[in-house]
């Protein structure tokens, strides 16, 4: 089993306050790992550490190591654009750019590969196909992306992230702003995608984690309390806090 991504003693401080501490996690290639935990436990911060979006926050220091394909991101001096091309991200609320559907998906491709017109068309189509949106938007490629429904927007955003061929895809509560049907579609999509990509899913929804994730990590108070195969973690949690959380006593 190869590891697409691995963190070693990952920590995060924001203005001298410790947000994350000592998190060591392995993300095997082609798996879905769910990161769960109560609000404010640092799930989103953890996700942002993986593609270094933490740099947008003032006064942050990131500790520990992130290994992408076995290479230390920090020490190898990998530029952020390169890291983020290889580690894509999808946010809580769909955030398409104001512009056409086509331009949204082509955005990353135009930055990184600069393919010719026909190749670009092919790859945009392939990306939209992959998220199962092609049938819905094939005639609306030149329309404003903001005119799509929220669920469509979220899938479009996933297509946009997939277009640049990332190795890892970070999903930050991708369905929390969506209606139940759209949520189901996103979950189906996640299961579909895990053959080609390594997925890391932050979610609030314990059932969702149980449904789609191969592995589940439980974060609590900025620390990793438990990490195991989903089946084991949900059926036989080792820690009291984990059990309380998954049985819904708090959260």
């Amino acid at each position, binding site marked *: 089993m190869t590891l697409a991504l691995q963190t070693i003693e990952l920590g995060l401080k924001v203005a001298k306050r410790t947000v994350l501490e000592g998190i060591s996690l392995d993300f095997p290639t082609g798996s879905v790992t769910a990161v769960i935990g109560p609000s404010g436990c640092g799930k989103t911060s953890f996700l942002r550490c993986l593609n270094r979006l933490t740099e947008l926050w003032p006064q942050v220091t990131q500790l520990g190591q992130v290994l992408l394909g076995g290479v230390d991101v920090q020490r190898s*001096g*990998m*530029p952020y*654009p390169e890291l983020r091309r290889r580690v894509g991200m999808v946010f809580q609320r769909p955030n398409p750019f104001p512009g056409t559907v086509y331009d949204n998906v082509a955005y990353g491709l135009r930055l990184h590969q600069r393919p010719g017109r026909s190749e670009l068309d092919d790859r945009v189509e392939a990306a939209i196909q992959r998220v199962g949106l092609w049938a819905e938007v094939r005639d609306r490629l030149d329309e404003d992306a903001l005119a799509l429904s929220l669920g469509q927007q979220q899938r479009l955003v996933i297509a946009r992230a997939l277009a640049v061929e990332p190795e890892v895809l970070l999903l930050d509560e991708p369905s929390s702003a969506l209606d139940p049907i759209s949520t189901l579609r996103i979950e189906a999509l996640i299961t579909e995608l895990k053959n080609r990509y390594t997925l890391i899913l932050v979610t609030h929804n314990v059932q969702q984690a149980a449904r789609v994730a191969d592995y589940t990590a439980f974060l609590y108070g900025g620390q990793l309390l438990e990490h195991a195969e989903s089946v084991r973690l949900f059926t036989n949690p080792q820690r009291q806090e984990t059990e309380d959380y998954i049985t819904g006593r708090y959260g």
Partner: protein
Amino acid sequence: MSTSAVLQRRLWRDRAFRGALAVAAVSSAAALLAVVAFLLAGALPLLDWRGPGLKQLGTRSLDARPRHLSVGRPTASTPLLDLLLARPGVPQCAEVGGRMGCYRSTVARPDLAANGTGAQIEFTLQRCAGCTIAAQDRAVAEVRPGQVAVLLSDKRSLLLADSAASLSLLRPHRDQLGQLQLQVEPSWTLPGAALIALHRIGDADRLLAIDADGALSLIDASQRRWHDLAELQVDTRNDALFAAEEQIFHWRQGELRHYRLSRLDTPPLLDLWQPLQVAGQSKPAALWQPHSDDGAGTPRLNLWPLLLGSLKAALLGLLFGAPLAVAAAMHSVQYRSGLWRDGIKSSFELMEAVPTVILGLIAGLWVAPWLDQHLGAALGAVLGWLLLMVLPGGDRHSELSDRNRAAHSLVRCALGLMLGGWLGSTLESQLPGGRLTAWMHSTWGWSYEPYNAVVVGLLVGLAIAPMIYSLSEEALRRAPAGLQEAALALGASRRDTLFGLLLPTALPGIIAACLLGFGRALGETLIVLLASNNAPIADLNPLSGLRSITTTLVLEAPTAVPGSVHYRVLLLATLLLMATTIGLNLLANRWRARMARRPPRLRLHVGRKQ
């Protein structure tokens, strides 16, 4: 890790972009620093508090005491009086404007003079060559011998210094009958010993003086100022001294030293603030006369008239503009519909954009002449407006619908202005003369300048009101909407929330708005230029004219010679102005930051009986 060439290029472009932006930011900040540096560099010589001084240029050995270098010996211009007294009847003449003015001693007995009993000196004015001198062109004055005297640059006046080191001015002038008089103007005294020699330097009335102790000083006769030249002390018995224009040669014990008078043109900083005693005036006055025309040559640059002028215009502007603007903001935040609020806000934004030259045009062409004729009507209108606004009636103003509130205010406002104006003008026409301004002058002795500070203040107030309005309105909106709704839900009226929640929360912001408005008013130029008489007067009387720093710049900077004292003083005044406005801006920022920091204030007395 191999990164592709594309990535490298992108990263490089990113860094270049960032660098370019940083350069833009730094250069725009540098612009302000450049302005400050420019003003400072220009005004720096004035910040020298030392005043004129002597600078030693060189030394040469010279064994023999040079004969023609002398202290206290008669040279061409020095002890003119001694010369006159020593050779009575022999005139000393100078021509000005085609007329020959002559001084001569009329005392034929120098022995009397030597006894100190006094002598007479006569001044005559000859209208043309060969003309006989009429009696009215002849004037006589008593002088005391032992004085030294020098003819001033107008070639008419004599500056006399007596043994007590007190100076007086002998100035020919004509009385009401056309008779020439020689008037001795009040003397002023220098500290130190009696003067033994006076020497005029250059065209202006600057005199090098040596007293009996050998101390040198520089006297500015037109401004009645002196500066000690402490760098050189002369032994009046053994040394020799010679002055030619700004060069001074001093011989002592086999050595000849060469000095030059430096910083002659720069008055020390303090001189810019002290009132001047001017010939013909009884009291010292703060004068701004960059091109003084009475022949004295040196400009009179007192900063008080300009500072007070700027202050007067800005304070009156704030006085008129700020209350109206803040009140208007208080009124408009209570409108419920966004359409009304946006409409009012946009109107004020348009108002802020009106070029001040247009406001100045209105002020100068209409407001000032109209107020001069109809001050009574204007006062009546203001009082009528106030009265009708305060008058009870129209219950629960704040609870009215938007449209009714606006209509209510408008009708009351118009009615008050018209009734008051009509009443005022009716009363005014009953006054003797039919004009309040004329009546005020004849009854109370208040002189009313048509182009006065009040007119300026009115229009400056109108110019800064939109800005104060916008900032105050923004501040009043800062209180969370939820809090206001909660208060309303608890039964408070809209008025209660205004005075109990919005106003206390917004107070620092409103203060900041007023400070910024004051800064804007200080920098206002065209209204002041067009609506005031631009007379540099150092007073705070709102009914007199004014001249602000800004208008002085506009009027005088284009013709001022770079490097001249006048130019430097203009830069100094600008520096003061800019320091003030920037200071006000910083202060306002601090108040606004305070507003942003502190939580909303709630002082409600819900359920209080009205």
